[in-house]
């Protein structure tokens, strides 16, 4: 006779689930609305999404207060884990999404934004990502990962052009492979330790003193491959440029920011303990991967002829930059990671939005891609303000002080220096110099060449709407006046990261 298992609701600690549940509910709500009355305008859905995200953000705020007072919270059979990393990364995820979703309100209506499902998907993605960061169970991470990924594949496809389908298929197939890698890796760890919770794994491995190192490494390799694919580390990056090119600028911007931070958190949780428990191999391999990602990403970006594709490679290189923080693995570097990513979010949001507003329905005459460099030549003469803003984002991406990204670079390099990775710091420095070239290339086109005949300023803002302008305004302010925000951000992040023991 089994006596009933009774679990007190307190011990479940459902609160930890709220931040993820809210977007899910929101998504379902959107779907219901569509069922009851179809063909509603996108503005409605955008508004709803924004509201949902706003509430989500509120819950996160309260969660952060809880953390600040009581420290890490676990719940739902220890599945959920709300610690500093979880909270900061969710802030980034939700916050960034709030900036990205209004991009759907472009002047020209594009195919995806006419589907209510698109917004539902969007919210599902966010929910999935939130799950990923707010747990240390490999299962839940897997679920979150796949939820978000599947949603993302669909959203890309919804752009409904040949290229976007191609991108979706490519991304999907490789994603499936990555999922295989992930599950295999998880399996190995499970086999080794009989647990799928990262801290459990850590303790068990530590207990038997990494007896069978070989298998640990095998597991690590598969994990590295899976996560590396998602953040686009060389040689698992090959999807990135095609997907960025295939999907709409807004979507690409979203991809370059939001999902990656979740993966970084997972990687941090997983690799930190391995590195610190003296898996030198991982350190070496990460070193190689990081450096090659930074460098190759840059080198390939040098030779691109399409701005969006260039930005794809550049964000690969930036991912390498940030991965270095995980390799270094000190509190400073981990805080640097988040700082960097927040600033990167602002800048990339701006950059991609600029591409987005310059997007025409059909390809401009004599151009093979939506955002070829030629399209921007002589911009300063036809529409100076647009050119200046774009130039600003480019400079920020190149890490020119005092614009946003510089501070991120500064802090990461500093963390490298502080923990004795001098060569790494120099490599970063030189890479930023190389990167200077391709960001400059766009500036050269905009400021120093003459406009292609018949080009008018209108073409650069053909897709501009108030919402987009507002977003860009935000991005501009964020990029220029980052310097003021750095100090509070740094204090907040360091405190949270430190308190969650990373």
């Amino acid at each position, binding site marked *: 006779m089994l006596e009933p298992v009774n679990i007190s609701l307190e011990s479940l600690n459902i609160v930890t689930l709220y931040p993820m549940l809210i977007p899910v509910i929101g998504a379902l709500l959107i779907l219901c609305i569509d069922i009851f009355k179809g063909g509603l305008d996108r503005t409605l859905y955008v508004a709803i999404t924004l509201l949902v995200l706003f509430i989500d953000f509120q819950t996160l705020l309260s969660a952060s207060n809880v953390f600040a007072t009581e420290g890490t919270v676990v719940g739902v059979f220890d599945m959920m884990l709300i610690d500093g990393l979880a909270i900061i990364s969710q802030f980034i995820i939700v916050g960034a999404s709030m900036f990205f979703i209004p991009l759907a309100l472009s002047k020209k209506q594009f195919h995806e934004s006419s589907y209510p499902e698109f917004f539902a998907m969007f919210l599902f993605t966010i929910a999935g990502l939130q799950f990923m960061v707010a747990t240390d169970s490999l*299962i839940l991470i*897997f679920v979150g990962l*796949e939820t978000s990924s599947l949603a993302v594949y669909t959203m890309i496809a919804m752009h409904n052009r040949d290229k976007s*389908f191609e991108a979706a298929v490519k991304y999907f*197939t490789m994603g*499936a492979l990555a999922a295989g890698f992930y599950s*295999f890796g998880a*399996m190995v760890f499970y*086999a080794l330790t009989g647990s799928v919770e990262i801290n459990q794994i850590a303790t068990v491995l530590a207990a038997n003193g990494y007896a069978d190192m070989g298998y640990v490494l095998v597991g690590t390799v598969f994990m590295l491959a899976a996560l590396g694919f998602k953040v686009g580390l060389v040689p698992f990056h090959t999807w990135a440029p095609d997907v960025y090119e295939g999907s709409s600028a807004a979507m690409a911007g979203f991809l370059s920011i939001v999902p990656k931070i979740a993966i970084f958190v997972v990687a941090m949780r997983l690799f930190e303990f391995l590195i610190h428990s003296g898996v030198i191999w991982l350190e070496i391999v990460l070193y190689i991967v990081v450096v090659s990602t930074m460098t190759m990403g840059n080198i390939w970006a040098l030779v691109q002829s399409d701005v969006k594709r260039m930005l794809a490679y550049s964000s690969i290189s930036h991912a390498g930059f940030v991965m270095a923080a995980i390799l270094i693995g000190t509190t400073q570097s981990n805080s640097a990671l988040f700082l960097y990513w927040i600033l990167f979010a602002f800048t990339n949001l701006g950059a991609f939005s600029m591409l987005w507003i310059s997007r025409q329905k059909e390809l401009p005459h004599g151009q093979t891609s939506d955002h070829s460099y030629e399209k921007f030549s002589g911009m300063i003469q036809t529409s100076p303000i647009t050119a200046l803003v774009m130039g600003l984002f480019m400079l920020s991406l190149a890490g020119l002080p005092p614009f946003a990204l510089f501070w991120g670079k500064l802090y990461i390099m500093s963390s490298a220096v502080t923990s004795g990775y001098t060569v790494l710091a120099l490599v970063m420095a030189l890479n930023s110099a190389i990167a200077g070239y391709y960001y400059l290339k766009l500036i050269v086109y905009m400021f120093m060449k003459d406009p292609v005949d018949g080009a008018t300023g209108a073409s650069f803002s053909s897709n501009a709407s108030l919402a987009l302008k507002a977003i860009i305004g935000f991005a501009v302010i964020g990029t220029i006046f980052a310097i003021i925000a750095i100090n509070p951000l740094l204090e907040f992040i360091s405190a949270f990261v430190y308190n969650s023991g990373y």
Partner: protein
Amino acid sequence: MMEIGLNHYLVLSTILFAIGLIGVMKRRNLLLLFFATEILLNSVNIAFAAISHYYGDLTGQMFAFFVIAIAASEVAVGLGLLIVWHKRHSNIDLDTMSTMKG
């Protein structure tokens, strides 16, 4: 007759996984490619089941279930994409989809 131990399962799953990998690399036809990925995931499931039995806790099987679920949903999305592609190009040969490169 010999005892079938955990390792046999693990070896089996590894072999299946390898087959899956090879399939993923070799297949030119999208549909078959998806099959290959299914093999990948299911090989892992075998291992999970075996290990969870070996340890005598259910986490592994739970994981396996999730994997199955996710595999299913992937198939859903994948086939969806595939159908659209086929509508537009009336083929599902992935050598045709290389407009973006460099």
